[in-house]
């Protein structure tokens, strides 16, 4: 998996840094790790710079992770990007919606192995 470009979308800078650190310490060779604090900012990045995979929080201001995911899946240029949702979301209805939209799900709190394994699986 040489030089992948990863986008982390979370309104918490601490969580973005925790996920970034987990990726950097895992066996994932990255080209760049990009960050966005909400779905709208993520879309701006996605439309200007292709990424290999996106890791999304759900509850965010301006545009939620689910809205971003729905927008990505409806967009010809973004719909094939693998997505992993990282959230405390406990609703079966919402989790089913993530699955419908072909997004993997990692529950917070997560282990480093869960993040690394999920990224490796989606990029395999």
């Amino acid at each position, binding site marked *: 998996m040489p030089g992948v470009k990863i986008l982390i979308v979370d309104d918490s800078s*601490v*969580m973005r840094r925790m996920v970034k650190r987990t990726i950097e310490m895992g066996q994932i060779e990255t080209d760049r790790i990009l960050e966005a604090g909400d779905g709208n900012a993520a879309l701006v990045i996605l439309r200007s710079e292709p990424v290999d995979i996106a890791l999304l929080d759900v*509850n965010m201001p301006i545009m939620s992770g689910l809205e971003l995911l729905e927008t990505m899946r409806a967009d010809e240029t973004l719909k094939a990007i693998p997505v992993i949702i990282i959230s*405390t979301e406990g609703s079966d209805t*919402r989790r089913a919606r993530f699955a419908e939209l072909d997004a993997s799900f990692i529950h*917070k*709190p997560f*282990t480093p192995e869960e993040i690394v394994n999920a990224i490796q699986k989606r990029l395999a």
Partner: protein
Amino acid sequence: MNDERHAALRKSLVAAFEEMAFTFMDWEESPSPPPATSIGAVVSCSSSCDGKWRFLLAVSPKLLPTVAANMLGLPDDHLSSDDQEDALKELANVVCGNFLPAIAGRAAIWDVGAPTIVNPASVERTDDEIHVTLKLEGGVAEAHVSRIG
């Protein structure tokens, strides 16, 4: 019902501190009373079937820098106050999110607001709130959950 919710809140609180912040329960007996909490994060949640709820996570002063440092993998003295507050808000978000199914099950869809930093003393308490206090290595963490509407 409240016993189940109390157990769920405790489980969520322990999991967040142990798994995200590598901060564990302190089982040692201490003759002195636990320190008071001085900073908190409030999360407001609502669902169409179970109304509005308020979740407060509060910690004692010396605990927060340790917790934030552990979450970020940095020394305490490399942390800004924003880092510490953001760490507390994220912990509150995680504890709250994991507790919500104990209120209305896994079918309910919740709207969860962004956490805000507060002085715990300024948050009005209700008689029927669910409340858990954890004595941790380095301080105390409290969670209070109240129905507000």
